[in-house]
């Protein structure tokens, strides 16, 4: 009996300890989100669903916009941000993640939201067809480029270990594949004859055989490369530049030919109207196209769509010998079906490489 009482005490003490420890942590932690509403009460919340790579730019852009909006209207804008792979983010919005604004890697991911009936306006009618930034596909290689990687053809050499994200979840991966295949078809891959789909397919296969890791998103892929995995990362130019800004020592190789990566932004009409934030959402979108905001994008590795800013930053962003757009493949609907559909070129080629997912 005495033993039981003692045990009860011990159990009680343990529960009290558990509760106390939880309370301490909850006290340092718990209340922050609830206190976020401003005392004036005149606040509005915008939810931004973005792909993984422009986050550094948005970290600078959002405070500038918040300040401007406060000065203009006296209203405080609170931003809720989420950064996932472009495809994953697009599917989340379709499944009910109520983002007011999407900033994605590629048009096809916006189209998925249009098809779900959530974007009801013609988002292409915005300035620059709703494309807020551009980039090109580059290779990140180890310091000093020990393997001497100069262009696309080098990626097919046996034994080279390549990182590229997974095309099922990442927009960056789709750009990488299209860029590689387009460069081959256009005669910009040494040893691969132009306009020869079979040769391009063999080249794609040879590169895929060298792929070591396929991450969920472009950012995860490059940070894995930074941890010492692999010899080459196929990535966005802005990813490599932001990595270098963060102190990474890898080098960037720009191939002679690349697709022009075009990143769209759009308001998600249904959610923005449901939340009653259309006005501020439109203002934020318009702000992203101002020279001021475009200069911030350029600062964080993205090629500006504003001609003035593009000219000012031209030295930082060298022109490529051959650059082509998604129109080379007949636009996104055709490219999505031809490459990433069930019988698409990429879908079937990746099956020929047993080690890939």
């Amino acid at each position, binding site marked *: 009996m005495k033993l039981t009482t003692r045990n009860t005490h011990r*159990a009680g003490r343990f529960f009290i300890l558990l509760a106390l420890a939880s309370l301490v942590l909850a006290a*340092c*932690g*718990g209340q*922050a989100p609830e206190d976020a509403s401003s005392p004036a009460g005149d606040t509005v919340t915008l*939810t931004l669903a973005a792909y993984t790579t422009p986050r550094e730019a948005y970290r600078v852009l959002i405070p500038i916009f918040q300040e401007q909006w406060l000065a203009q209207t006296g209203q405080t804008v609170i931003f809720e*941000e989420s950064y996932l792979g472009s495809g994953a983010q697009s599917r989340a919005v379709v499944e009910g993640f109520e983002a007011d604004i999407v900033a994605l890697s590629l048009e096809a991911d916006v189209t998925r939201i249009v098809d779900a009936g959530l974007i009801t306006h013609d988002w292409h009618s915005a300035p620059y067809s709703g494309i807020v930034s551009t980039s090109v596909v580059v290779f990140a290689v180890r310091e000093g480029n020990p393997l001497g990687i100069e262009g696309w053809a080098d990626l097919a050499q046996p034994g080279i270990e390549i990182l590229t994200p997974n095309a099922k979840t990442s927009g960056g991966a789709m750009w990488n594949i299209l860029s590689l295949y387009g460069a081959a078809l256009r005669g910009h891959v040494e040893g691969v004859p132009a306009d020869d789909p079979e040769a391009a397919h063999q080249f794609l296969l040879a590169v895929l055989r060298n792929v070591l890791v396929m991450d969920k998103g472009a950012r995860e892929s490059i940070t894995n490369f930074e941890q010492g995995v692999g010899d080459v990362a196929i990535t966005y130019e802005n990813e490599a530049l932001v990595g270098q800004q963060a102190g990474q020592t890898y080098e960037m190789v720009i191939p002679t030919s690349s697709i022009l990566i075009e990143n769209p932004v759009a308001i998600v009409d249904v959610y923005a109207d449901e939340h009653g934030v259309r006005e501020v959402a439109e203002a934020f979108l318009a702000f992203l196209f101002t020279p001021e905001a475009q200069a911030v994008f350029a600062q964080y590795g993205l090629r500006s769509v504003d001609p003035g800013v593009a000219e000012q930053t031209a030295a930082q962003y060298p022109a490529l010998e051959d650059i082509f757009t998604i129109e080379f493949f007949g636009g996104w609907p055709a490219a999505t079906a031809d490459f990433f559909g069930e019988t698409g070129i990429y879908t079937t080629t990746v099956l020929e490489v047993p080690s890939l997912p």
Partner: protein
Amino acid sequence: MNNRKLDGVRLVLLTLVWLYVGVLILAPIAGLVSGMFRDGVGAVLEVLSRPEVQSAFGLSLKIGLFVTAVHTVLGTLVAWVLVRHRFPGQGWLNALIDAPFAVSPVVVGYMLLLMFGRNGFLAPILEIFGWRVAFAVPGMVLATMFVTLPFMIRELIPVIQNLDRTQEQAASTLGATGWQTFWRVTFPAIRWGIIYGITLTFARALGEFGAILVVGGGVQGRTETATLFIYRSLDERQYVAAYSVAVVLGLFSMLLVMGADLLKRKQRS
């Protein structure tokens, strides 16, 4: 001769065990801790004082405490029913409880979206009441409940099986109600199982990642738990932030489990 041979075996065994545990567990933890302090203690304190970090810890704890509370009551009930009652479909129920061990957490997230997402089959009902489950905290709670379901039940089933039923019978012979019997006789006997179940459930809930990323969307400051914060910080190359939160989270969970372990051993001796 025989003794010396035994000592040799012992030495090999001990070395093997220490190597195994050391490589698998100690080395990564050492790496994490050294990464955490690479910019000094000040940087760690700065990270832990950030509002986003505190809200992430807060959310992890809230979800963990809620989930643990529910499983403590209902998990005990399930374990009790499974041991003490015989009913059709019992084998199936028993097997179902282990499903969360077998299903990948990411899949759990998508399963919840199939139910509660905008196109999910429960969406019309949710809309009527204006409830938000997917991409909000309730969805994350459900996901965590799913993955932590087996811990309490699996901990308690053997404990209840080993109970001496004569004490309960004696209690009811002496006129105790069913409720009194439970609180006065049964509960004290299975108390240690419950405590161990609580710590395991809570620790597992704190560590959940895949399911709550999918179902919560990882919105900073709103649906971002400590584990999701770690994931984001790694993406943002904020390594000290990621490592610091990881170490605090890991330490907390380990203390919980070790505390329960220690108490259990003391109680046995």
